[in-house]
């Protein structure tokens, strides 16, 4: 027996899907800015394992010599990123959705279990809840990262007017460094997120668009469903 079950509220679906293009524009314009001083790498001492970014990468994506462009787009879309994120946090706080989203004391153990299961190292199925421990940690971390991007961004955007913040973040150069790595974090999140969504299947993805999921139940459906 199947029934429809409400999964994601309308507001959260909108925040999610608005964030996707807005964050994409922020990352793209951020790359145009980063190009002008592309100093970060993975390496130690004189050994560089990976340089962010190789020339072919810039030329393939047309990221070179566009600093002014990058700044103009970045400082326009930052408002949409900030406001959308703020509304999301307010909504989850007021609606009570935070109860499903915030990690609790079981989340970490559960997250390890989920990871092992997904990597086919364990056969213990994660609990069939709206958000398992791994999701709670991931979806809360991404918000914390968003706050981090806004704060480090502000620290490098107005380092004199917000000198206290810039100092708190370890200075201008550290703030820029953190700002960059948070962005790399979003990119990593994106790939894992998309892989998980593909793995979870169409019914799960559709719920992020329609709000509803089809669930199988053993007994006859109760009168009140869809709440």
């Amino acid at each position: 027996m199947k029934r429809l079950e409400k999964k994601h509220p309308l507001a959260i679906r909108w925040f999610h899907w608005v964030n996707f293009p807005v964050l994409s524009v922020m990352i793209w314009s951020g790359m145009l800015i980063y190009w002008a001083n592309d100093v970060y790498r993975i390496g130690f001492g004189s050994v560089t394992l990976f340089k962010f970014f190789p020339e072919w990468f810039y030329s393939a994506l047309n990221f070179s010599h566009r600093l002014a462009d990058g700044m103009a787009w970045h400082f326009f879309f930052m408002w949409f990123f900030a406001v959308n994120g703020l509304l999301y946090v307010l909504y989850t706080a007021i609606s009570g959705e935070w109860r499903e989203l915030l990690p609790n004391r079981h989340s970490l153990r559960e997250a390890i279990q989920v990871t092992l299961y997904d990597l086919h190292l364990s056969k213990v199925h994660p609990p069939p809840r709206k958000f398992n421990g791994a999701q709670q940690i991931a979806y809360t971390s991404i918000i914390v990262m968003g706050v981090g991007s806004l704060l480090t961004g502000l620290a490098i955007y107005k380092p004199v007017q917000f000198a206290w913040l810039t100092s708190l973040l370890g200075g201008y150069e550290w703030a820029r460094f953190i700002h960059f790595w948070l962005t790399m974090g979003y990119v990593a999140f994106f790939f894992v997120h998309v892989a998980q969504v593909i793995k979870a299947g169409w019914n799960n993805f559709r719920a992020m668009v329609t709000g509803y999921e089809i669930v199988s139940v053993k007994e006859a459906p109760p009168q009140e469903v869809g709440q």
Partner: protein
Amino acid sequence: MSEHTDDQKPAAAESDAGDSARDSDRNVEREMRRLSRRSFLWGGAAAALGAGSLGWLATRRADDGIPWPLRRSLEINEQLARDYFRNRRMALTFPRELAKDPRANGDIGLEDKLDAASWRLTVQGLAESDERNSDDDLELTLDQIKALPRVEMVTELKCIEGWSTVVHWAGARFADFINAYEPTTQSGKSPDPQKRPEDLVRYVSLETEDGSYYVGLEMESALHSQTLLCYEMNGAPLTAEHGAPLRLVIPVKYGIKNIKRIGTIRFTDRRPADYWAERGYDWYAGH
């Protein structure tokens, strides 16, 4: 995305418990298809609107190198930043040991060989009441700038490209320069930079000797106590590539505003042209 709200129940929810399980499943599937159709149409429309807006934005007529809506947005950001700006907020300062020579990035306006002996600073837009202001522009020697109180500071030079260098500067406060050589006012009354700085004309324009590089500043930033007319860097007179004999050091702005080899300073009520602002950058470029 669905326009359903939480209190609306899909029709399938009302299916009678007496229906056969297969009918019920079919109803659920049908209802899901209906919801999906609506939601994906909404989603598609929203995506098309979003993509259209981005395309529209990217193709607008250029205003000094960037689409005009982005130029307007920079100007709005500028207004907000200027409202929040306070002259008492200081750029971070550092111990002298951390000072290094910055990259000599900009060379526009530095091409001609400098003749230090014949160099003069031309000052325009001085108050009528200023007796030194004859029909001709005021011309100052480097010694006259050096006669102003000497200030040293160790601040970070932040290039708009994203790098920064801690540098030890020495020079005269721009605010002291303004006290000594008073700009005209908006009201037409005689200027009082200390008591009524808000009455001074709103902008300062600075140009290299040859006029090929030029920056505009709003008066608030020019009056900031860390804004210097600088003649020494890291304990030695400025070298040619760093802007000898006199450059601006303004930690409340990006490096692009820290103009080298100043030839002319002009006080004006009209927003001055700015070399990089004409090439797609933010006119304000303020920190």
